[in-house]
């Protein structure tokens, strides 16, 4: 067994607690480094690192004025240097093994939600990358997914400036294949990889809220 992040051999010390469980995909050192949160004052809702003298998160204020409200916003990891490297390797070098690493950090359980909705990637992007980075993680965390959303957009969020993101039109549409699935009064979780301004997940939420779910929460792997 190898640590899928640093590729060193895993030689976990056996003790009563791990004797009957399969070893994880990470060595202890990498786990500590990935889990580290940068110090500083954070927004209580989206956990953004706030600037000095900022009493309320300006991103959350903007979103509150512009979009219908969503429920909880959860995120698993900070966007520290290690996580940044991991995301780059996962999405752009296509080191898909890292989906196992990300899956390890998911604490949401299957019974908590009725639909786990991944943010879609466009067909063009899918051909380049070869996979949807969120579905792969959900699958490795043994969670089902419902692709309720579709997108045709080609440009990456990370290629847009902050201003362009704030003012872009909603890129998501409802996937017709799910037309007959009842969504009213169900619990939906939107899953995205990196939460930067929050525009992406709120665009997705906007589409899904038309179907009047009982709860609509957001899970992101990392908070930039």
């Amino acid at each position: 067994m190898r640590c899928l992040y640093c590729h060193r051999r895993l030689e976990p010390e056996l003790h009563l607690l791990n004797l009957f469980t399969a070893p994880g995909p990470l060595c202890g050192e990498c786990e500590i480094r990935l889990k580290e949160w940068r110090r500083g004052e954070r927004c209580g809702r989206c956990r953004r690192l706030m600037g000095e003298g900022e009493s309320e998160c300006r991103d959350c204020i903007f979103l509150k004025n512009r979009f219908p409200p969503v429920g909880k916003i959860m995120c698993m990891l900070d966007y520290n240097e290690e996580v940044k490297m991991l995301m780059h390797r996962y999405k752009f070098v296509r080191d898909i093994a890292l989906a196992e690493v990300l899956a390890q950090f998911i604490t949401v359980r299957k019974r908590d939600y009725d639909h786990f909705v991944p943010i879609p990637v466009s067909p063009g992007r899918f051909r380049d990358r070869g996979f949807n980075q969120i579905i792969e993680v959900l699958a490795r965390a043994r969670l089902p997914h419902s692709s309720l959303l579709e997108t045709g957009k080609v440009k990456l969020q990370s290629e847009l400036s902050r201003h362009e993101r704030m003012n872009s039109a909603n890129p998501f549409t409802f996937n017709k294949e799910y037309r007959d699935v009842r969504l009213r009064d169900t619990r939906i979780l939107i899953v995205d990889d990196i939460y930067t301004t929050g525009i992406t997940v709120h665009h997705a939420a906007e589409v899904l809220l038309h179907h009047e779910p009982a709860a609509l929460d957001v899970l992101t792997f990392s908070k930039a």
Partner: protein
Amino acid sequence: MYFDSKGDILYKEAGVDSVKNLCHRCLNNDKTLFYEFHSPLHQKKVKYCLNCIGIGRSDSVTPLIAARSMSRREECGYKLHFELTEIQKAASRKVVEAVREEKNLLLHAVTGAGKTEIIFEGIKYARENGLNVAVVSPRIDVVKELHLRLSGAFKKSRIDLMFAGVKVKFEHHFTVCTVHQLYNFTDHFDCIIVDEFDAFPLAGDTHLQGAVHKALTARGSIIIMTATPTRKMLKLAGGNVFQIARRYHGHDLAIPEIHYANVRRAMEKGRLDAKLERLLDGIMTHGRKVLVFFPEIKMMHEVHGLMGDFDSVEAVYSGDAARYVKVQRMREGDIRILLTTTILERGVTFRDLDVIVVHTEYFPADTLIQICGRVGRKPQDPTGNVHFLTLYNTHHIRATIRKIKAFNSGRTVL
């Protein structure tokens, strides 16, 4: 030949042979270093190599395309702002000789001997004779520094620069890159100069050492530069060793002073160790700067939290985004106490610097020699103090002091 998607040679149908568990690019055949998954795009199982994932994915569905190696002579001049010392000139001649006679060479030079300047003449000779040259190091920091200094001296040459994520490519005649990037080359470079051969991860990685040999032409030469050679390097050099026991400014290396202290115990009681505090006080009143080395990041952060009495203290570690900024601020004197792990053991130079190593009993001798080499690197401040705080004396501490004393008396020991 080198791998390049714009090339015209179809080297292999696929980068990875999923049956034999072999990566054709890095020659990895360790089956634990492959990952297999079901690809939703190809609708079948795909296997890829984890060993060389850092330079792009080599997998069982993508062909390996390569381009033919070319060689081209160029007029190659460089500028130096100072004259080399006699011993540097002798070393420089030795490098040229190694390149000309296609021999390997081990350049065993004390830290701060001016190693980079010594290879200039060898590079010039190689380029004027149409030989492809690579200057490589396992560490990104060192690669960046080398590129800066080489492109500053060889103003007219086009130098390729490659490390994870950054690529400035011309024709691969004169390349500065990390050792990992050599996986892309087969039988291409006539001269590979390896700086800091003993640094992590090259030292313990046989695949990576293999990459150096794979990238080298049959008659090419490897030139190894290090302050802490191992038997393996001696063997590789075939006994062709040149030693420099003196720093370029001619002064002795500082001999570390040993203090017995238990910084961890004090830390657990919520105090800064008295001896450490006294040393820091002394250094601050003399108006000097100090690097404090810690064996682990967690301990460094905790001690950092206890240093409220000192101004201008910062901590850097490998995952720190502001790492280069902080090092720069230390140079400018904005930060005067910099806490660090072994990431700053090589490749950094500060003026008026002292060094403190905390819990020295955890450090191996070659790391300690590098750490001691941080002080007194500038002719304006040719000495400096090194303090080892340790629980007990170790073989590695004694070996460090023995080797430094040997350097000072003009001998080099392996």
